């Protein structure tokens, strides 16, 4: 257990910059999720921290030990005390589950099954898995063994590269919970990279958004979702309704009425950020703004309803409803906005 501090990390492949002056601090014993689209440099960041790729510049510190300085990786990967869970698990095909998990243990500990059983239990796998071969495991089990293997030598930090990609949704949730539980139980400092916002928001104590090689915002999941630093981040972390408006003394006037604004007061023309679940169908008559339903997508527990605002504005907005009775296409419904909204100067 140690904190991870990266300062000024830079890396380019040829003349294409991949990481640009990147700062990241992961407090001891917490999990930070790094959220980025594909090609944003997520995997490269992990590989720099791991030492598989030399950085062009910057400092990486594990606890008090500097492992990369001015881009020079002077601590080789195997001496950094950093565990790594690769995308597909990368289990050694010639070893059993026990052999894989014991791989990083000192020779004396490899024979005693105690730690093996302990970490397998930690990731929610039964002792009976020990003698199986990697190809006899399901995708989710392979990921769990991959994590158990990384945790076994008690690393200071664990890096997880898209650990749940390619798993079906139910298995994904289950594996995700097992992984988060295991990391918390070991109080391991962890970095998880993903392109899936719901995964980032549900696993990280903090979520850092990586865009074109820069961390544009690092915040708790709630702050990131409610008060993203700009509209791009807002759209990236979730469905966003953005309307033009005018702000005056903490109130903002827009197509959905006059709404209370959050955060530092801005006056003048603004963009208003509203999350679809804030938009509700008004119960009483004469309340709210009328909008016409143009379509909807059903997700089971909730439905996302697309609506066109009156006044010929081209923007359609989305409202999320947890009601199973969804208004039909063409119907005109009154809308109200609940809670406060975020505003951005226009």
């Amino acid at each position, binding site marked *: 257990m140690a904190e991870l501090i990266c300062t000024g990390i830079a890396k380019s492949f040829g003349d294409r910059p991949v990481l640009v002056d990147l700062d990241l601090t992961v407090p001891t014993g917490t999990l930070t999720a790094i959220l980025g689209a594909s090609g944003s440099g997520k995997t490269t960041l992990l590989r720099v921290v791991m030492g*598989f790729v030399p950085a062009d510049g910057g400092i990486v510190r594990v606890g008090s030990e500097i492992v990369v300085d001015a881009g020079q990786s002077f601590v080789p990967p*195997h001496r950094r005390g950093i565990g790594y869970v690769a995308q597909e698990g*990368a289990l*050694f095909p010639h070893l059993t589950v026990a052999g894989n998990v014991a*791989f990083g243990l000192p020779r004396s500990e490899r024979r005693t099954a105690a730690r093996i059983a302990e970490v397998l239990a930690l990731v929610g796998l039964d002792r009976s898995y020990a003698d199986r071969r990697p190809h006899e495991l399901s995708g989710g089990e392979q990921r769990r063994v991959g994590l158990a293997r990384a945790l076994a030598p008690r690393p200071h930090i664990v890096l997880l590269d898209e650990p749940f990609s390619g798993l079906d949704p139910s298995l994904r949730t289950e594996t995700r919970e097992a992984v988060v539980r295991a990391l918390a139980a070991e109080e391991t400092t962890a970095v998880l990279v993903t392109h899936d916002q719901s995964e980032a928001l549900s696993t990280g104590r903090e979520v850092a958004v990586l865009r074109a090689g820069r961390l544009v915002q690092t915040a708790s999941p709630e702050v990131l979702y409610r008060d993203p630093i700009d509209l791009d981040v807002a759209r990236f972390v979730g469905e966003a309704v953005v309307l033009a408006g005018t702000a005056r003394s903490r109130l903002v006037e827009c197509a959905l009425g006059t709404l209370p604004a959050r955060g530092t007061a801005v006056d003048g023309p603004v963009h208003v950020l509203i999350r679809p679940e804030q938009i509700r169908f008004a119960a009483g008559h004469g309340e709210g703004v009328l909008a016409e339903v143009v379509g909807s997508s059903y997700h089971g527990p909730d439905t996302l309803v697309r609506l066109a605002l009156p006044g010929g504005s081209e923007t359609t907005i989305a409202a999320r409803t947890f009601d199973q009775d969804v208004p039909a296409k063409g119907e005109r419904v009154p809308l109200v906005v609940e809670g406060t909204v975020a505003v951005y100067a226009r």
Partner: protein
Amino acid sequence: MTRIPRGLAVACGVVAFLVLLPIGVTVVQALQGGFAAAGDAIRAPSSLTLLKNTLVIAVIAVPLAGAIGVAGAWFIERTRLPGRRVWAVLLVAPLTVPPFVTSYAWANLGNPLQGLVGAAGIVAFSYFPIVYLLVAVALRGMDPALEETAQSLGLGTGPIFFRVILPQLRPALLGGLLLVALDTFIEYDAFVALKVRTFSSDIYAQYQLGFSASGAAALSCFSLVISLLLLFGEARLRGNVNYTRVSQGARRIAPRYGLGKTTLPVLAGFVAIVAVSLGIPLGTLVKWLATSSGTALDSASANLHYLWPATLTSVTLGLSAALLALMFALPIAVLAIRYRGPRVTVLERSVYLSFALPDLVAAIALAYAASHLARFLYGSFGLLVFAEAILFLPFAVVALRATIGQIEPGLEESARSLGAGPLAAFMRVTAPLARPGLLAAIVLVFAFTLGDLATAQVLLPLNLYTLGTEFQASSSSVAFAAAAPFAAVLIGLALIAAWVLMTRFGEVREPAEE
């Protein structure tokens, strides 16, 4: 681009230096006779004949070996041909049969085969297994989804083979053809009993007449230039193909095609190939052993007490050379697979230059180098081991590349993240996974060393004799009866080697039961 670890770079540099050493010595020797003398040797009318002969042999042998190798691999790997496992062993076995034994066997069949046609035939039927092995490995690594896609686009079996499979086989096929072509230019053993004049046979003749180092060296420069052209021509044709499979879970095994009515003709073809490649040397051997009666037997029995010591020397030589070659080949293979780049390509290619000099010339150059640089090695068994290891290094590199190339780099990285250093990661992850390739490298170099005559004749210490040198010495006597026992042990060892090779490396895989 990942930085190359210093230890690996140094190891590869040393290996490349050792491979290039005999070439350097030869070039210097060629020039020592003066440019004029070297020029005369090269311009001599006989040189042109030699070049023409060698080219004719290559032009016949290389495509023939390619066709047999590809067809054999495809039928064994991708069809429901009966007896696939047996055929697989039989198609590899010719590679390990010593070429000089094959040479005497073909010569024994009659005059027509002692010319260029016979020479090309021996090369094609002795070396097609190289193409077969490389293409079979490539076929196994191929993604069946590509063929399925081609089928969905309306292609039949034939067009799929030519438009989807063959293009993917190109790197393996070109690599195999390259080895066969290079070999043709330096082959001596296979032509030893024929009346064909090639560079190697002329160099050997010069050597026996009273050696003029500069003349032989000048002739070798032909093969050197041709080798360089072939090597870099192949590199261009091959391009920068990445063999490393980016795995997504378990690999599916490609389906096999039924042969239907063509089963019998295909089987007949296989029988014909095996009859020529194995039947001729084995049949001749049996004939020799059967006729070893009367006068011939006397000389045979006189020779027999050499059999055991010769076997011991040969096996010791083969195993030591194989292990040394493996040590040399490992860093090169790892470098070539894990760190791509122009400099790495040049380094890797330079290893194949050990095919650029006729065995004999390389052996003489090494003896010369040892006498100046490492006197303790001069005239020792160690120098012969070293020479054989360098000579057959390309085969070891090819075998290792094929298996190490299929290991995901992610596995080594995982090992590093678990606290294993570069060497530990190699020993605990890469080496166990590459075991078939390691074994194949050892077996190949062992078999080739056993079947190598020219190098042993030059570098073998005076008090020692191998199965090959004894065979050669005895075969010049009255009948082949005296030589037969040595050939029998050689072929026996060769067949064991082929069997080990196929069961461990070239295993014919069947689709798993669902």
